[in-house]
């Protein structure tokens, strides 16, 4: 397992560091807010929070442009934010309002913004994997240098679509990066129980593609490995499996009692191994960002999230006619 190196911090620009820190904070504060609002009963449906895993989405998306595509999961808020989706539109979507990114029709599990290259959160485990191949295929057929990133969980790695997609990406040398967020759990089942493999990246050898496992709570480790993978993909050198070991701070979904979790491990992960804290320390130690810069971002994000909530609460619900629009482009 690789860790991020000091040199990499030294090589990072202040702007990049700020962007990264801001995105991680946006995700964290957004998710904390959703958690609270959900508990109050103001958010309907199923909600899966990304808090704790920020370094993965942000470390990877830091290398992408709007023309690059990502596919996501049921735990999609973090991917959305890292890919540049609008917080107001996201929160309003989760609230089911007309001003939501999907006009309130999708909700938390189907947040999408195709204009940002975010091809949608997905309620179906494993569904994002073939979708990523498709985006990679488009890039190949159209001969652009765009890449596609597929975020998927350790649980999803046991679904057949994982293998079908990786195999196709491998034989066609598609510009796809398979980013596994291995948080050790698929719902209440541990990775150790559900998967026979030790490491998901071990499959890379068999498929004869690049593979790596990194500390997913270490922003720089993810950032570096993802950078190399994206580079390879852009150069036409084919796909990568990048496994990021991480932890989900909240339950599987909102309302989960989490009895299956080891309390001590959880507390330690949150207190001592938090990706945002670690990034804060690293950028301070390497003098990349100052305390003031960090606080400024913190409060700026706080305002943005507060704004998103207010915006959502103030937004109207969709008009009843919307129930049957957007089923077809034309019918």
């Amino acid at each position: 397992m690789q860790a991020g190196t000091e040199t990499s911090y030294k090589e990072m620009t202040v702007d990049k560091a700020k962007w990264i820190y801001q995105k991680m904070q946006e995700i964290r504060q957004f998710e904390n807010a959703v958690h609270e609002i959900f508990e109050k009963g103001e958010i309907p449906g199923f909600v899966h929070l990304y808090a704790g895993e920020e370094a993965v989405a942000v470390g990877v998306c830091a290398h992408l442009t709007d023309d690059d595509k990502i596919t996501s999961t049921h735990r999609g808020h973090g991917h959305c934010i890292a890919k540049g989706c609008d917080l107001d539109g996201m929160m309003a979507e989760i609230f089911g309002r007309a001003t939501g990114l999907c006009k309130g029709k999708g909700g938390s599990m189907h947040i999408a913004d195709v204009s940002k290259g975010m091809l949608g959160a997905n309620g179906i485990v494993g569904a994002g994997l073939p979708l990523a191949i498709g985006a990679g295929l488009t890039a190949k057929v159209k001969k652009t240098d765009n890449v596609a990133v597929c975020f998927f969980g350790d649980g999803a790695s046991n679904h057949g679509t994982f293998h079908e997609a990786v195999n196709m990406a491998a034989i066609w040398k598609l510009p796809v990066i398979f980013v596994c967020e291995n948080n050790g759990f698929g719902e209440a089942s541990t990775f150790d129980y559900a998967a026979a493999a030790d490491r998901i990246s071990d499959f890379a050898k068999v498929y004869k593609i690049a593979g790596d496992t990194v500390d997913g709570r270490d922003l720089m480790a993810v950032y570096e490995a993802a950078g190399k993978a994206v580079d390879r993909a852009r150069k036409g050198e084919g796909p990568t499996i990048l496994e990021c070991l991480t932890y989900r701070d909240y339950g599987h979904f909102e309302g989960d009692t989490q009895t299956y979790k080891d309390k001590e491990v959880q507390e330690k992960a949150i207190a001592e191994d938090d990706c945002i804290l670690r990034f804060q320390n690293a950028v301070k130690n390497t003098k990349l960002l100052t305390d003031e810069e960090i606080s400024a971002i913190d409060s700026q994000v706080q305002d943005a999230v507060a704004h998103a909530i207010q915006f959502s609460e103030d937004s109207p619900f969709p008009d009843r006619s919307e129930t049957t629009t957007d089923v077809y482009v034309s019918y």
Partner: protein
Amino acid sequence: MSVKMSYSEAINDAVRQAMRKDENVILIGEDVAGGAEVDHLQDQGAWGGVFGVTKGIVEEFGRDRVIDTPIAEAGYMGAAVSAAATGLRPIAELMFNDFIGSCLDEVMNQAAKFHYMFGGKAKVPLTIRTIDGAGFNAAAQHSQSLYAIFTHIPGLKVVVPSNPYDMKGLLLQAIFDDDPVIVFEDKTLYSMKGEVGEGFYTIPFGKAEIKRKGSDLTIVGIGKQVFTAMKAADQLAKKGFEAEVIDPRTLSPLDEGTIIESVKKTGRLIIVDEAYPRCSAATDIAAIVGDKAFDYLDAPIKRVTAPHSPVPFSPALEKIYMPSPEKILAAFQTMVGDRVFTTV
């Protein structure tokens, strides 16, 4: 003797009754126990499914018979099909019926066809439990009611229990049935309480239940839409019309007889179904009754269904999406004509 329990508890009870009665009955699916191999958990406190429906069953029967699977629907459903063909009576949980996209082959081409393709020499006593239903703001991929797809496929039996009593009896019937059966659990009914028989009992397939007697209109309500139908019947009663409300309980086999007898008496039929409207259970019943009770119909058969649209997330839209007593009344209005309805 009967006891009060919820729809969810009725399922739990049925599974336990079956597992006590026959050691070949196993329960298999994603997190049906939960927390497999988590030391501090074994086996208390385990989830028992995302809605806790099968909670405690692993404590009673152990992990050899209550099997958590990886997220691999084709894999474990195929395993359940052949476990059934080789001597077990598996209850396989497909968490949400929307996930059938990952394992339709195992259900449609394997389970449903073995008996026929092999000339009657294999049987597949498999029960699939699955969650359906809108009304939970679970959005387009977790709110569908896909029983029409299964009803379409010969070789499957399709069960849509609307209350705790039926759920227990029908689920037990399913488990000890020698054909593959899919039982739909409407997620919005889990907390619904009702009287349930104690101990072991079964309800035969293909027997509809008349929930309310009436002579002016027959309303068939599928699954939880029986309650929408009952509410509409109450409102109609206030206007002087007595609706007969029928719960088909199973869609395959379908109790055509009870519905047709009712329509012969009432001359009018409304089918209430929250599933998609095309090639649906609603069109199915309409076509059958329209054929077999043609001479008795005083008005066209009306279907009150979801629109031809995915299920929207927003609560504001989902409410409009669903059948409602108002929509049933509006349909009835068109059947009797303005004059009759408003003069009462």
